[in-house]
């Protein structure tokens, strides 16, 4: 199968989550919706069910969700609720609602009230103080609640061995995605920004073992290609989610490749693996504790601006000439962190631009102008 065909298959899955959901249900599988961020999907997999990511939509319009949300709720959360209310997700057997940001915390209760008894909602409060033994224990307690509710939905108890096996499957998947991101940089003439996004996005709508097998096959084919001599410019993308094909098409129109990303929906979600032996619940809690350089999580050394330096280094090491930050409208954590990121980028002489986006945007004229001008500057 050609590389292009393989990537188009990922693209078809990424753009048609409804079909994936319907297919899983037709196969008799139970499906759990997973909202951002850092839910232990491994537990869903270990329970023999299918986790499907719920990161909003680029096609829906917010209407019903407005009954529950203030204007300043981010569109990702509002559109997730919209799809729960408009019937798009009626086939789900449950929804995990993490609460790591200030929008998702109250939103978890909106989900509960809005959905009622239609779909079970599984509340998950991660600890910000996640390093000490009591932080780890809190995380284990939370994950244990999630585990019990998943057991109820699946109708059988998952074993520790089931979870260890799931961790192995997920570690392999994360490794394959990390390798793909590097290969996409080496072969950015083939892996366009649109296809790169689609390949990574498809992971949210497939069983991870099936996804990984396909991705490993793609990676092997990419490795056979000579490293491309890219004549355009390269950037690092940053933000919560950068998956709108219209937005990514602007990159291609201006010969801009994505060298690496600091995007929550992409690389931030698969940077850290979990231990494959020992107590699997502790392994998952430690995995969460090990997440670093993250806008949403407490950093005891935040005064050192480690995250800003990490992202600046990513730009330099990936061979990018600049960074494009896609700032989700009303995303407080990203907004508050931006001055520190800017400081670190400025200190290293790395040019960047910040573009305001949300999932209700249908016209990208201003973004197109800014991205084209940025390419001119680079």
């Amino acid at each position, binding site marked *: 199968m050609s590389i292009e065909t393989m990537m188009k298959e990922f693209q078809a899955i990424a753009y048609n989550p409804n079909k994936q959901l319907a297919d899983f249900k037709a196969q008799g599988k139970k499906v759990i919706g997973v909202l951002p961020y850092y839910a232990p999907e491994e537990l869903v997999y270990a329970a023999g069910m299918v986790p499907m990511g719920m990161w909003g939509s680029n096609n829906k319009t917010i209407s019903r969700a407005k009954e529950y949300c203030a204007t300043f709720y981010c569109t990702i959360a509002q559109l997730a609720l919209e799809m729960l209310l408009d019937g798009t997700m009626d086939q789900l057997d449950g929804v995990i609602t993490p609460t790591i940001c200030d929008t998702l915390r109250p939103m978890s209760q909106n989900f509960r009230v809005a959905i009622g008894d239609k779909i079970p909602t599984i509340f998950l409060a991660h600890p910000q103080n996640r390093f000490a033994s009591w932080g780890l224990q809190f995380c284990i307690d939370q994950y244990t609640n999630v585990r019990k509710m998943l057991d109820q939905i699946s109708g059988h108890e998952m074993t520790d061995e089931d979870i260890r096996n799931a961790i192995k499957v997920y570690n392999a998947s994360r490794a394959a995605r990390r390798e793909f991101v590097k290969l996409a940089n080496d072969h950015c003439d083939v892996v366009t920004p649109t296809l790169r996004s689609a390949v990574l996005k498809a992971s949210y709508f497939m069983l991870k073992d099936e996804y990984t097998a396909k991705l490993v096959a793609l990676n092997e084919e990419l490795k056979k290609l000579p490293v491309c001599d890219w004549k355009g410019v390269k950037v690092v993308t940053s933000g919560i989610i950068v998956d709108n094909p219209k937005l990514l098409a602007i990159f291609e129109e201006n010969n801009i490749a994505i060298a690496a990303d600091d995007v929550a929906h992409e690389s931030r979600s698969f940077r850290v693996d979990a231990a494959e032996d020992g107590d699997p619940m502790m392994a998952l809690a430690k995995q969460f504790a090990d997440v670093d350089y993250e806008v949403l999580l407490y950093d005891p050394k935040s005064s050192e601006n480690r995250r800003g330096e990490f992202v600046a280094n990513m730009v330099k090491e990936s061979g990018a000439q600049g960074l494009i930050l896609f700032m989700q409208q009303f995303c407080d954590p990203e907004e508050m962190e931006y001055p520190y990121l800017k400081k670190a980028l400025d200190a290293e002489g790395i040019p960047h631009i910040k573009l*305001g986006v949300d999932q209700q945007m249908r016209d990208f004229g201003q973004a197109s102008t800014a991205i*084209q001008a940025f390419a*001119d*500057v680079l």
Partner: protein
Amino acid sequence: MATIYTLGIDIGSTASKCVMLADGKEIVGKSLVAVGAGTSGPQRAIDEVLKSAGKTKEEMSFILATGYGRNSLEGFADHQMSELSCHAKGASFLFPEVRTVIDIGGQDVKILRVENGAMTNFQMNDKCAAGTGRFLDVMARVLEVDVNDLGTLGAKSTKYVGISSTCTVFAESEVISQLAQDTDKCDIINGIHQSVAGRVAGLANRVGVQDQVVMTGGVAQNIGVVKALEDQLGRKIHTSPLTQYVGALGAALFAYKKACK
């Protein structure tokens, strides 16, 4: 050697502008039609500039489109570029010492840092009309005055009236409220200019303002905004009678560069 004619076309959100250059130096034709992208404006502006210069499309060595509607001329223009690069180029042609360009257009505010005639950094407004030409259009309509008269009317102000710089819709409500209280229109207009200047100065300071500062775009014709911005930035702002044509001029200059390759 035969003269090289190039054409720059700037299709903005509210106006279409053309500039024709001979050998990248002399402006031999220009046109402006007060409607922009998605209208008959671009074609009318092109017809007008060709007619005024007595030239045909075929005589143009290179045609370059810029502005919000730049992609709509595919097949007609040889190339398209962002208006930011073109404004930097055009402003440098008119003011060789320019280091900062403030372009307030119909729906965008752009601050450009320029080094040796090339753009090195920029900032654009967020997805918001506050501080743009549209903001002034809305206010002029509420005040029942011509937008072109805002500058002279604002100069007659004797009292400061604060108008919000946060949101066009809220600012419009404030203006209506001031009118209901019989506040002098000239004072309100001056407040509006201060509001625009406040918004733009905040954006400009993010890039870092350096002399020489040049203001381009249609709003640069409003002396009230220029003055308010000078006060807020504490710097002299240079404008040109060709202020509305700077983007098209830059496009024609880039076109000349392309034609000579």
